[in-house]
């Protein structure tokens, strides 16, 4: 336990200067940050409560949605527009955490949540390059059931644990941020970063920047999209593998398609290769399996997570068959 200051940010404009200090951090629902403070993983000196930022969910001019950074996860999942137009997002959020946590958690906090790697969480007993750069990675050769098979590096094999972000990746969401350099929008695909040699840098947020909103563009996939999460118990567990997918059909052919994986990579993993293989092609089980295999051909499994390659392939093939109405 380390003494920490607490202030509430009353307006967006007030935040960047407050963030300038050493160890100053934003606080959403606190369901991740406060946990990590208790474990000593995070040691902020000042918490800036940003739950007073906009929490609205509004329709955009292009028919998409703009979701305020402070909107609670449960409010987003339950919103009628989200449920009708983006069932994939609603399902993804509802498959995460517990009702109590979703009631507290904010959209920005969910985007920024940190990995659940047990060595990352163990300050006293484990080495971790993400927590203490250069110290080593105890997950390699240790318990890595929940770790990445795609996009990892020799420095870090942790996964991004969010469900919501997987749906946002499939929906091509954009993250609106504001900061000392002014307002800008970051595509979700560029928001989370792969670890490389610097696993401590997890997002494209620049120092002093704050998430303001998430834009979800209009999507033609509402009718044929879903989220499936595979996990170690029926609820309240992180994904071993999850799939967010949506497609449109033109007779027997796939007109357009979006696929993202959770639980397999340091970021929500957009399956661009599988999408490219399938787009314009036949909606058949064989095509789905081939595309899934191609996407996972680059997987680099470890002892504890080797099963994920097969699990991800099967989950994707099954979900696409279901969406396309193809019997397997």
């Amino acid at each position, binding site marked *: 336990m380390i003494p920490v200051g607490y202030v509430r940010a009353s307006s967006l404009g007030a935040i960047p200067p407050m963030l300038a200090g050493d160890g100053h951090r934003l606080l959403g629902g606190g369901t991740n940050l406060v946990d990590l403070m208790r474990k000593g993983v995070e040691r902020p000196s000042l918490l800036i409560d940003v739950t007073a930022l906009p929490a609205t969910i509004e329709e955009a001019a292009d028919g998409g949605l703009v979701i305020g950074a402070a909107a609670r996860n449960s409010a987003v999942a339950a919103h009628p527009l989200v449920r009708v137009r983006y069932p994939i997002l609603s399902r993804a959020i509802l498959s995460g955490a517990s009702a109590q946590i979703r009631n507290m958690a904010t959209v920005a906090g969910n985007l920024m949540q940190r990995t659940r790697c047990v060595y990352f969480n163990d300050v006293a007993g484990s080495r971790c390059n993400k927590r203490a750069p250069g110290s080593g990675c105890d997950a390699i050769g240790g318990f890595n059931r929940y770790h990445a098979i795609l996009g990892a590096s020799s420095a870090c094999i942790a996964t991004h644990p969010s469900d919501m972000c997987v749906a946002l990746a499939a929906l091509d969401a954009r993250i609106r941020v504001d900061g000392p350099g002014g307002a800008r929008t970051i595509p979700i695909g560029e928001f989370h970063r792969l670890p490389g040699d610097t696993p401590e840098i997890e997002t494209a947020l620049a120092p002093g920047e704050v998430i303001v909103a998430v834009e979800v563009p209009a999507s033609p996939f509402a009718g044929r999209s879903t989220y499936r999460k595979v996990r*170690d118990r029926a609820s309240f567990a992180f994904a071993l593998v999850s799939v967010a997918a949506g497609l449109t059909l033109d007779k027997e052919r796939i007109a357009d398609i979006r696929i993202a994986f959770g639980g397999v990579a340091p970021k929500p993993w957009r399956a661009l290769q599988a999408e490219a293989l399938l787009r314009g092609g036949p909606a058949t089980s064989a095509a789905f399996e081939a595309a899934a295999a191609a996407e996972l051909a680059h997987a680099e499994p470890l002892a504890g997570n080797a099963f994920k390659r097969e699990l991800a392939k099967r989950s994707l093939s099954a979900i696409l068959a279901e969406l396309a109405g193809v019997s397997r």
Partner: protein
Amino acid sequence: MSRVQNVVVGSVRTALGWVPAQWLPGGTPDPLIERRAAIGRQASRLDGPQKVAGEARFAAEVAMDRLVYATLVHSPVTRGRITRLDTAAAEAAPGVTLVMTHRNMPRLGTLPLIGVSDLTAVGNSSLPIMQDGEIRYNGQVVALVLADTQEQADHAAGLIELDYAAETARTRFAEAKAGARTPASILIDKNHVSIGNAERELASAPYRVDYLYRTPGQNHNAIELHALTVAWQGEQLLVHDATQMVAASAAALAKLFGLKKDDVRVLSPFVGGGFGGKGLWDHQILAIAAARLAGRPVRLALSREGVYRIIGGRSPTEQRVAIAADAQGQFTALVHTGYSVMPPYGACPEQYTMGTRSLYRARSVEIVQRHIDLDIVPNTFMRAPGEAIGTFALESAVDELAHAMGVDPIELRLRNLPERHPISGAPFSQHALGQAYRDGAGRFGWERRKAEPGTRREGEWLIGLGCATGSFPYARMPGANVRLTLHADGTATVSCSAQEMGMGTATVQVQHAADRLGLPIDAITFEMGDSALPAAPMAGGSCQTASIAGAMAAAADKLIGELLRLAGNDTPLAGLRAGEVRFADAGIAGIAAPARHETFRSILARAGRETVSVTAAGSMPLEFLKFAMHSSSAIFCALRVSGVTGEVRVDRLLGSFDCGTILNPMTAASQFRGGMIMGLGLALTEETLFDERSGRIMNATLADYHVPAHLDVPEIDVMWTGIPDPRSPLGARGIGEIGITGVAAAVANAVFNATGKRVRELPITLDKLL
């Protein structure tokens, strides 16, 4: 346990073989078996309203003046020693009253280990507690901080600077097998049993299975964390503890701190779940020592991580089970051997072969357990230690054999039910597993099971049914005492030090006292959870109910004598002797002449007494040495396995129990269901991630250690034969632990039926089914 002990227990058994059954306690069945009014009735828990209203005070909630709060610092090193220790910053931190390390910790001896020879021995570990700079397992406490608030203590704990010189630790199960020990006995049974030549029978049998089964370490996760609030008053020690062993803890603490027995008082009226984990561990000793050094009352509540670090869990095991059968399906060989962890400074032998010793008859038997030493916090008793995981191995193997033979697995079990105890040859006191199976199979719809695995499918889901036997021995503890007090207004108070861990102890014993004394339920008060009361044994081995019941029966006998004496000659009872009367209608009546009756009120009034009080101990529990006394169960499971992901979803569980008299259907059903839910965790989700590279537990949180969530738990149906055991008080055997046994095998067998895949390693996670 020692060879000496084997000899002693063995000779008692031999001697008992000569004693006619009716000479033994329980030889004449308890009359209350026939005469039940309150017993057997559905009654909700007496402590329910208090719990719901938040009025039940738990150990960490007791208010005290000048209280200080404790935080522990754990070693991240597994073996080695402290080379630098700087507490200056912590001592200077705001609010801090004391930093205690091995430097200033009072010098104390070690705790005698829980065992069967000394009933005041309640230690789970005989390692020194903060007496030197040596580190013996990962998580060992190296410092304790006291401060005015919990936050200040937590903060200061982080300021203590420690360096260690690490040494090589023994942390790998597979490697340590080479140095395994073979103890002479497992609890009160001889460890190695060898009848006939099992290996030869195996080699020559027409049918056989021979496999290794593995179960992981697990941890207790009671909702209430281990906690105590403790105060010294001069040389007197008051401990509000969350413990399963009130009286014995007080005795052990007195010994350890060099106090008179009566100067230590342990209070523990409510315990928020124990499951075997709430015994005497380092944290109590440390808090008490710190309170003495600081001269202030101390509260210590472990964090969830703290529980994983310093409270042992269930040992991992590797078990071999081999069964051979002749053409008729009669077992010709039964082999159950294996390895579990038990460091020499621990107390729990994880008796996974116990069920095997009583469940089946076989021409040849080979049973032996081996103990592995690792540098760990010693493992301990966790709900149905032994049986919970032993039945997984045994009952999976029986299912495998049934499949190999093309015989229905229930039929195969029934063909091999023993008439007498297969090893000791003792007669069963009562045994109706066959009936439990038939009743359960009927209610469950077992006939709908397809014998050929992998043949029932609904969409992507493969459907399977499975069953397995559960087993738990009866025990009654010596050293159970109860005080009965009758008051002038005709009410009664039952007093003993036992605790309420949520199982309904008070509720059921009040029902018992009502029937025993011929009073209505609302005339009875039950005082408990206080070592100043007559000592009850620990709540363990599912024996608290029977042990207290036995003591209460003895006290009631004594009370009759006392009342007759008080009644004198000017009473309708005049001239009747103790054996000729019994309790009835709020008083005493002649057995042959029930009209000769006088109420307690009248007897006490005439004698001018406000109260009459007697204390008695239960008789020596010789019944379970003379008779084979075992509860058993038939567990049924229906589940689905995703053909895509391997996820398992349990749709239905049914437990059909043969556990003697059911004293209260509501509390019993809760015990059975709770046990079965824990069994689901054992089967599907629970596993302590012990990193063998470091010797450290990596998932010491409820986020990472998966107990079943609500959605994992289906409808659970429970039923029972309800046949009283003529050899036990009230005809009851324990029910607290049997619920968990058999469940993992029933699930594994259903998974096999669904998929054709046999998983021999728990938990059955989806990767094993891909």
